């Protein structure tokens, strides 16, 4: 019994170190989304681009889509921008939310850098974003046909992320009924 008490510290150490080692693989600053598996919260946003129809949550149902939250002040958004433009050209439904800035700023940025969004809405006070659990830009939600969130990417969609995660997921969602 006494022997056991003396071995306990080593055993505990092994457990703790294992936990630390595994814990190192995670990024502690990334929050998991609360929306995975749930439908998008309802929102109806005014237009970003002049003369546009704006973006509502209902409009996103019907086919798998990417919902990308961006802002003109966001550097990493520019990094994923070419990828989004390519996706639009390939026929993927990409929708955008211009987060926490006046629509005119977002429109100017899109005019300057290219516009990958089939649908886009302006969220000047950021409420729609907060309802989505957004904490910064860029963030991208992958939606299925029924408008449910299946995945959230925090940060820019790099080519690796696209190849490894999002592209296969989209293919699976297309195949779903």
């Amino acid at each position: 019994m006494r022997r056991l008490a003396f071995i306990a510290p080593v055993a505990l150490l092994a457990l703790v170190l294992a936990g630390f080692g595994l814990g190192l693989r995670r990024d502690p600053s990334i929050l998991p989304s609360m929306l995975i598996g749930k439908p998008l919260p309802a929102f109806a946003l005014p237009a970003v681009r002049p003369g546009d129809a704006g973006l509502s949550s209902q409009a996103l149902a019907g086919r798998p889509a990417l919902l990308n939250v961006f802002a003109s002040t966001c550097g990493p958004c520019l990094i994923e921008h070419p990828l989004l433009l390519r996706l639009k050209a390939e026929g993927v439904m990409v929708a955008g939310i211009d987060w926490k800035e006046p629509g005119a700023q977002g429109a100017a940025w899109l005019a300057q850098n290219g516009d990958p969004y089939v649908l886009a809405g302006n969220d000047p006070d950021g409420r729609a974003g907060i309802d989505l659990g957004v904490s910064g830009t860029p963030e991208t939600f992958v939606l299925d046909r029924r408008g449910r969130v299946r995945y959230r990417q925090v940060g820019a969609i790099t080519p690796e992320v696209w190849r490894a995660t999002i592209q296969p997921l989209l293919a699976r969602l297309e195949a779903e009924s």
Partner: protein
Amino acid sequence: MRRLPLLAALLALAGPARAVTPDEQLKDPKLEARARSISQELRCVVCQNQSIDDSEAPLAHDLRVILRERIAAGDSDDQAKAYLVRRYGHFVLLKPPFEPATWALWLGPLLILGLGGVSVAMYWREHSKGPAEMTPGDEAELASLMASAEDHD
């Protein structure tokens, strides 16, 4: 690649916390006091270890405003917190919830204290026992040793 939150975090880190601005405050002092105390229990999710009451980050400002709206609309403290938990998860609470996943966290201290207390008590018991009583065999051996010692004088 980190994005906007890092910049916000830098600003939040650099500036004064308890970052409520006068225009955010509610008019009713009781409601405002509630809002302040709840804010101190809510984490700023884009900062490094600050509450939304302390942080100057834009998102913290938004969450403070939303919190005050919920309180002014009549939500209880728990309902207001739940509103934010629905959007950001339990991570937004600085006081961890009491659920099966956190039983070890909340009950651990008591358990460790109990275990430790028992060990200390056992240790004391062991160390307050006097020398063992002599058995009759010991007594006889002592007597014979004493006798042989006297013989050698």
